[in-house]
């Protein structure tokens, strides 16, 4: 099991927009702690501490010991709301977990050995379809990341869910679907080397709708 980090949080008495804003003005981020059948607890966490935690890409799979007064709660950072413009956290959800239970979490996919892929060496681009994967795993052994080896992949080849090996006890939530996790796509230059002069006209933009 990965190391458990201790965070000190305060309780807050009032919910709603006004008190939440007052909490933010006092240098804290409002949050809530819920789960395991115990009543939800409104908390507030220091802004600096939370921002530092959010720098870690694995923050949502890390276990935290939340120190609320004299009691400790083992929890996961389930959701973080960010200001859409400034990306400053405005609210955080902590999910209390039972160490002996299973949980569904989004685990980051780490693509390695891209320098050993002939397709990428030739100028292909790794097109990541899924940056994370929804997995069901025991709380005491949440994997930090799933490593995917890209060595030997050519342009046009892709990696599917069935190609990856998951750690013991870890299951894919939607295993009935055949996910394409990533593909190696050709850049416009590799597709048509002869039409170099007109590459700007040829390079079709990828809009959100055409994904």
């Amino acid at each position, binding site marked *: 099991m990965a190391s458990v980090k201790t965070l000190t949080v305060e309780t807050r008495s009032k919910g709603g927009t006004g008190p939440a804003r007052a909490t933010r003005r006092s240098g804290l981020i409002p949050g809530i702690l819920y789960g395991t059948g115990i009543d939800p607890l409104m908390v507030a966490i220091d802004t600096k501490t939370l921002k530092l935690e*959010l*720098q*870690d*890409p694995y923050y949502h799979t890390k276990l935290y010991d939340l120190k609320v007064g004299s009691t400790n709660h083992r929890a996961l950072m389930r959701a973080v709301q*960010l*200001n*859409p*413009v400034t*990306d400053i956290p405005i609210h955080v959800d902590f999910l209390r977990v039972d160490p002996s239970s299973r949980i569904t979490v989004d685990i*980051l996919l780490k693509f390695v050995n891209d320098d050993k892929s002939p397709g990428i060496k030739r*100028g292909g*681009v*790794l*097109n*990541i379809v899924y*940056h994370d994967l929804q997995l069901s795993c025991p709380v005491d052994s949440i994997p930090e990341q799933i490593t995917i080896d890209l060595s030997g992949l050519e342009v046009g080849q892709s990696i599917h869910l069935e190609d990856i090996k998951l750690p013991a006890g870890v299951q894919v939530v939607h295993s009935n679907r055949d996910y394409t996790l990533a593909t190696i*796509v050709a*850049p*416009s*230059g590799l597709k048509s080397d002869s039409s170099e002069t007109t*590459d*700007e006209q040829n*390079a079709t*933009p*990828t*809009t*959100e*709708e055409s*994904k």
Partner: protein
Amino acid sequence: MLAPKRTKYRKAFKGRIHGVAKGGTTLNFGAYGLKAMSPARVTARQIEAARRAITRYIRRSGRVWIRIFPDVPVSAKPAEVRMGSGKGSTEYWACRVKPGRIMFELDGVSLEVAQKAFELASEKLPVESRFIARVS
């Protein structure tokens, strides 16, 4: 240039841009993005100019995603025409961009290249923008 294939109505009201973006505020495709920090109407020409600036700088490596689409027809009257006699014809297409909206995404290039490419692209756009990167 980007434009809708067909529309339900030929002309639209001018409209105003209020508030901040409700969706499209996080990176969905690439590792780097260009986020709008102010509201503006971005035209199809501006989107195309920014896209060209990016693709030119990254030299056809990497991959670019455009997260905005010009779906608002902007009309104009011809020169030296008296007022009245109806609304002018569609002159260009634009997109209403609210603060917080990710306009472009980029992947397959280094951080420095992405920063410079987006710096060049932001020069072509009428909005204040900022570079964002995926935490990894």
